[in-house]
């Protein structure tokens, strides 16, 4: 496939506005300002079928159209707080082509009639923040941002806010409370951010990759965009492959690429010629798939049909030597550390699961622990303000469901089944 989002990344100084503009950058922005009304922009994005790349896959244009016609300031927020384990696509875009994202931001802001846009960038992205500030200055110098942009009468400023390290602030409502200078707690919905978001004004939150698609849709049209990917998941997609593969990295491919092709062709297959055991398809918050379940295409609906989620397309590959109980414990440690603590089930339940899993891997598991874990999952699932609870439950539930014998073994023999297998394999070799 022709590279779209990553077309410039190999070029030297791809983060500079000159390089970006040489490759046709900001033509879409000029076209929008010159020829299009905000409604037309929204309609085109709606028509393109662009779905949010942050994880939920909500149609972007539809989201924009929810902004009410009220006499309040409107805000666009670019969610650059990429922190889902196994996900590193936005980081690449921020590093290599910040102008593509900025062009997406200005067009989206125009579409929702916002005069202020924010980039909420992950605190750990220190270098990327520097690049971003430079890029914004370059835009201003070229007159592409600021007051009365290109004599269109449209004003826009872009402000950069750094996160302070909390995973939860990637969740859009928590991001907005954090942006307001408050503790990063998710907010109850309704009201939805499109109606009442930042400072109780209409706010649209879009992922970096989503916004990066926007200029291309404007330039090349909806038919072109829809010709890439599947019917219900259109456009290009960045897949992050990590774990036990020979060639980990970010791969730009159409929506709906077969997962096997990604792992075995693009990512070079499993390290050391081992066998594949399990794959997390969309970041750590999505249910794990077993070796027999990975014959699927990577688009929102196909992965959902397989009982998991495309999520952020952070694909984590695990080989046959992976101790799934330990892997599960590892993730539950992450979630227990990151729960914001607002809702009872998540605050109390997630750390409880972590403690039980820790006990099991310490050889102190009890037979009733497995059922207890599954029941705690039930106490958390769908009972929290934000999707974090579900995300924390997904690994525990799916690991137990799909690799139950490993958990049973741990409890029965007080040690890892996999390590035992490795020992015996080594003995044979």
């Amino acid at each position, binding site marked *: 496939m022709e590279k779209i989002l990553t077309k410039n990344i190999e070029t030297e100084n791809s983060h500079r506005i000159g390089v970006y503009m040489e490759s046709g950058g900001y033509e879409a922005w000029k076209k929008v300002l010159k020829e299009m009304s905000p409604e037309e922009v929204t309609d085109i994005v709606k028509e393109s079928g662009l779905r949010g790349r942050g994880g939920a896959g909500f149609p972007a244009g539809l989201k924009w159209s929810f902004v009410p016609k009220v006499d309040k300031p409107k805000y666009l927020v670019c969610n650059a707080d990429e922190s889902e384990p196994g996900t590193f696509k936005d980081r690449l875009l921020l590093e290599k082509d910040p102008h593509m994202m900025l062009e997406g931001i200005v067009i989206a802001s125009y579409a929702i009639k916002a005069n202020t846009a924010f980039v909420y960038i992950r605190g750990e992205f220190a270098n990327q923040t520097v690049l971003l500030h430079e890029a914004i200055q370059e835009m201003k110098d070229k007159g592409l941002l600021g007051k009365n942009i290109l004599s269109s009468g449209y004003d826009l400023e872009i402000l950069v806010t750094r996160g302070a390290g909390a995973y939860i602030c990637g969740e859009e409502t928590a991001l907005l409370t954090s942006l307001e200078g408050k503790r990063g707690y998710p907010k109850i919905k309704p009201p939805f951010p499109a109606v009442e978001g930042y400072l109780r004004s209409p706010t649209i939150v879009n992922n970096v990759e989503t916004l990066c698609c926007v200029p291309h849709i404007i330039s090349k049209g909806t038919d072109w965009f829809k010709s890439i990917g599947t019917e219900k998941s259109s456009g290009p997609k960045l897949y992050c492959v990590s774990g036990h593969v020979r060639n980990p990295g970010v791969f730009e491919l159409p929506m709906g690429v077969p997962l096997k092709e990604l792992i075995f062709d693009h990512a070079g297959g499993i390290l050391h010629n081992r066998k594949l055991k399990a794959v997390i398809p969309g970041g750590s918050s999505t249910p794990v798939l077993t070796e027999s379940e990975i014959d699927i295409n990577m688009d929102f609906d196909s992965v959902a049909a397989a009982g998991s989620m495309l999520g952020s397309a952070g694909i984590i590959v695990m080989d046959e030597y992976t101790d799934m109980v330990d892997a599960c414990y590892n993730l539950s440690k992450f979630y227990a550390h990151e729960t914001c*603590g*607002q*809702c009872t089930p998540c605050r*109390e339940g997630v750390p*409880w699961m972590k403690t039980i899993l820790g006990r099991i891997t310490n050889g102190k598991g009890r037979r009733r622990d497995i059922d207890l874990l599954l029941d705690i999952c039930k106490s958390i699932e*769908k*009972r929290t303000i934000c999707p974090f609870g579900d995300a924390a439950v997904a690994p525990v539930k799916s690991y137990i469901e799909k690799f139950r014998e490993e958990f049973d073994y741990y409890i029965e023999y007080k040690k890892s089944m996999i390590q035992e297998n490795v020992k015996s394999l080594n003995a044979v070799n």
Partner: protein
Amino acid sequence: MPLIKINDREYEVKPGAQLLQTALDNGIEVPHYCYHPGLSIAGNCRMCCVEIEGMPGLQISCNVKIGELPEERKIDGKYDMVINTESEEVKDSRSRVLELLLLNHPIDCPVCDQAGECLLQDYSFEHGSAHSRFTEEKRVNPKKQLGPEVWIYPNRCILCSRCVRFCEEIVGDPQLMVRNRGYSSIIDVRDNQPLDNKLSGNTADICPVGSLVSNDFLHKTRVWNLEEEDTICMDCSVGCNLIVGVSKDKIQRIKPRLNKEVNDYWMCDDGRIGYHAADELERLQSPLIKEGDGFRPVSWTEVFDFIADKTVANGKLPPGKIGIIGSAYGTNEENYLLKKIADGLALPEGNRSLYPGEMEGDPIIFKSGFRISPDKTPNRQGALDMLGLKNSGLADSLDSKIVYLLQGGVHDLMTESVSEILKKSEFLIVQSAYLSDEAKLADVVLPGTFHYEKNGTMTNDRNRVQRVRGVVQTPIGVKEDWEVIAEFGEALGIKNFSYESVDDITDEIAVSVNEYEGITVEKVGSLGSDLNREKESVQEIAP
């Protein structure tokens, strides 16, 4: 009007009504922790989940507004919402939340002040389980005094954030916060500064569990030993509505009582601990007559004979020679009887006055509009109305030979100018609960009551007449102030002072004082009644 069905019963509700409150208003118990009608919606405890037809899973009822559906989308052809608060799934959900809330709870109910009125206890009893599946180590944090009025026992905390929201939304001073994240979250003060705002005690009231507890009430008594009585606060002219907890005829604690027209759900700390003003007070338990440098205790009969002897010369009172001083701490009834005496004696206006004088200062107004008045007397308005006066304070012209002063309060207020005026009289009668500076000048001291012993009504500074109920007994030898005044009136030979109870006086006021017409005991009720008066110059406060 939307029509809804909750558990097979129909209710008509206002458009936009909030589901949880609607259910509670209709007597349907929906367990909840973080929801408080006076605060914003947090939705974090997950206890108030209910099933709503057509909505996926369970919904937190605190965040559901009831709207009207278009005709064609009505459920069963007529309902705008169909709710089940008692389905198996709802019950299961409650017990799950309770299990999680109790994981780290110390279950130290035997030594917890909240025990007996604790929502964790109540809901666990109804929806919880008797055994815990949690076998890990519990989270432990030390107790700590957050401020002068409030302690925190973090192990009992369920992090509902009511206290944090209270400080933000009602006080407008975010002194409390959630510190740390997730499992380590803990309620704490900000920047190590004490929780010392004037409304801090309310945080302990609204804490649904025993985490935030009152310093004043700490380990004092079990709540089930309390008898609770309604009255109003008498520590400033706002007149917050109260519930006073009493045991062994002693006030143990004071909590606010909801009155949307006056104090909403709140009260200030001054009022909350104001009852301690009487703690160190040496109460007078019999009338006193001056003798030499000191006083001689006498009986009630003797004192009134003595007063009659001194005042009624030749069987006739000298009109214009008697000064009557009412009290802004006294009830309407007390001041009304004084006015009746003044009228009976045909005293000119200059011989009537109100003590103490105006108290200057600015009100303290909080974010929610709750206010504390600079006037620390509870009934200046009512006393002025009863006495027919425009201004408070002792008139300089009060050069009567005989002066009667109703002290009413228990605060030392005497200034030099007051002392000078009082010293001018030849015969001074002071009615007071203790030997106050004023009483020390008196020839006769009549024992009076402390404000939580009073009965009657008071009018707050926004012209609302409210009921005052004695919550503790008067000490032995002390009569209610209105009874003493009535006897005083009779001693002066004035008629019509035979009242069965203070309510008779209230009802008499309701027919004889202009703007109090119709404001009978019944009309005043437990929440009070506004005067038939234009609300003048009331400062409107934006929320």
